[in-house]
């Protein structure tokens, strides 16, 4: 079991409000990703759930029981830290065994569970090494091993992949995804990388300035962003925002068009402009256009496109994929 419920959770440091009243329901077995720019409070929110910080107000309910006043050890959660936070003076075996020793498990139980975790995570050959003798990816696996032996009701990941290089990050992302499929345990995962969020999550929680901007499945956020912040945060490259007559014509303060939902032509279209830079990646082409009277605009074209700097082009948004927002930045329903 691992359902977690946040009720009006608030956190202030002195007079600075970091978390401003968050309500959230996480169902058992869900993979939830907290995402947002740095300083949005996502790590703080995770630490509040972990019990490493005390809430200033509100309630945290774990498995139907109020856990607000319980210490980190009593909440039945396990955490994987960005810095791995392995015990440098202990072998890998003792690192993984530490939570079991703290729970006063018998030696046979400890040995069996450590062996099983090490098998799952390909660490069997490294059990007698110290963390200092391992690579970044191996250390991350040890940190995960230490978390899984406790059989927690939920896993908390605090930007676990940000210290790894790009190739390893993709591999570990897949491994964590597979781990979730095998264990079927609730996981809460904090990241600032929206690609990680989109690829791993059942449910994404987008945070902005200590409040939830939107909660939803990855493609819901992509297809129906509730507000300008989510529209701009989810998706890469970023959504183009257009103001002025083009927006007025569509009955909105501003409209958003994703780079991949814009057609580009050298002959005719709604917005004329000049190509500033074209990035040719082979599988796709990113074209950065200065649109007359609107400004910079990004277009993504599938495959190769014969466009170069200073070419004159015409852009046309696909009306069905266009997002309309009012002056307050909220979505205008179609």
């Amino acid at each position, binding site marked *: 079991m691992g359902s977690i419920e946040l009720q009006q959770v608030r956190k202030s440091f002195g007079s600075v409000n970091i978390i401003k009243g968050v309500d959230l329901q996480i169902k058992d077995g869900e993979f939830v990703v907290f995402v947002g720019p740095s300083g949005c409070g996502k790590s703080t929110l995770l630490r509040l759930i972990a019990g490493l910080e005390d809430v200033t107000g509100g309630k945290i309910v774990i498995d139907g029981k109020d856990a607000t006043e319980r210490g980190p050890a009593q909440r039945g959660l396990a955490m994987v830290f960005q810095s791995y936070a392995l*015990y440098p003076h202990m072998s890998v075996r003792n690192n993984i065994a530490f939570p079991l020793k703290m729970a006063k498990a018998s030696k046979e139980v400890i040995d069996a569970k450590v062996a099983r975790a090490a098998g799952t995570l390909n660490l069997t050959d490294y059990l007698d090494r110290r963390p200092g003798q391992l690579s970044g990816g191996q250390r991350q696996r040890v940190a995960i091993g230490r978390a899984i032996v406790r059989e927690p009701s939920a896993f908390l990941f605090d930007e676990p992949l940000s210290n790894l290089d790009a190739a390893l990050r993709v591999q570990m992302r897949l491994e964590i995804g597979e781990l979730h499929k095998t264990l079927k345990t609730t996981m809460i995962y904090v990241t600032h990388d929206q690609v990680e969020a989109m690829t791993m999550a059942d449910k994404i929680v987008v945070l902005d300035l200590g409040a939830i901007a939107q909660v939803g499945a990855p493609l819901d956020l992509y297809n129906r962003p509730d507000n300008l912040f989510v529209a701009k945060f989810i998706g890469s490259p970023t959504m183009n925002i257009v103001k002025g007559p083009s927006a007025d014509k569509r009955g909105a303060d501003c409209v958003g068009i994703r780079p991949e939902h814009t057609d580009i032509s050298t002959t005719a279209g709604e917005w004329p402009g000049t190509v500033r830079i074209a990035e040719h990646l082979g599988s796709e082409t990113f074209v950065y256009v200065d649109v007359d009277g609107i400004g910079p605009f990004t277009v993504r074209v599938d495959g190769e496109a014969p466009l170069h700097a200073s070419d004159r082009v015409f852009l046309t948004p696909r009306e069905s994929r266009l997002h309309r927002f009012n002056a307050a930045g909220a979505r205008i329903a179609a």
Partner: protein
Amino acid sequence: MAIRKSLGRRIGVNLLAWAIGFVIFFPILWTIMTSFKSELDAFAFPPKFFSVHWTLENYKEVLSRSNYPLFAYNSIVESVGANIVGLLIAIPAAWSMAFAPTIVPERKETRMLYAAMLAAILIAAAILYLIGDARGDWRIYGPIVAIACIPVVFWIATRRTPDVLMWMLSTKMMPGVGVLVPIFLWFRDLHLLDTRFGVGFMLMLMNLPIIIWMLYTYFKEIPAGILEAARMDGASLLNEIVYVLTPMATPGIASTMLLAVILSWNEAFWTLNLTTHDAAPLTAFIASYSAPEGLFWAKLSAASTLAIAPILVLGWLSQKQLVRGLTFGAVK
């Protein structure tokens, strides 16, 4: 990039270093040499180097005249014991300052704490007044002292961590002799004079600020995330300190302990004033040979050599650890 130096410069720097080292070590060397001379040679002027009759007489004399093993035993028990107790107090203190520093004093709980502290002091003042003896002195002064403590206690309790650290170090700024009389009277009334417990207690109090300060700087080097991981793994506060913090800080703790033991071993003010025989450590052993008429330089030197030999050997054997501890964390 290595810094290139010419050979001549390197030789020069080396010679200078050896010369400085020799100057620093010379008094100890001279003491050891004098201890093997006859009394006559010891105070010959100009000093003799070669035409000396080397002898072990002084050592025989010193060892037969006084009970060296008792002094040595007292020194070991008092300096090591005091600092083990000191460490037991200092590790939690340094932990709290390094990992749970006071940053935001204004909270509901802290206000309640202040109220509780104020109430406790006022109650203490009232009790002192009620049980004050008939002669009346304590009936008045007890409560006055208690109430005078209020600003001091509050000042400390409401300070942020760096201020508390500074305050602790500031206690080392007052000369010990300033509090000799009250402490002597206190020791007399509590029957602590000339007891190992009393001397050890005094040495512990003397070193505590230094121990806490040093441990604090070592603990600061340990990433707080590792302690948080231990907390998530189900470790209690005690387990966190015993299984995670202490092993990680072992080099720092060892060098702190070593330095504190050396300081206690050489401490002469309190040990001389608070002991006579039973609890007297090696400092008193040396002092017993420096009589006012003291012309027995050779015997005094022999006693000094005997007193410093153990700590000198200890320091020699552990110098690598000591230097590592003192520069702990300077380079990752």
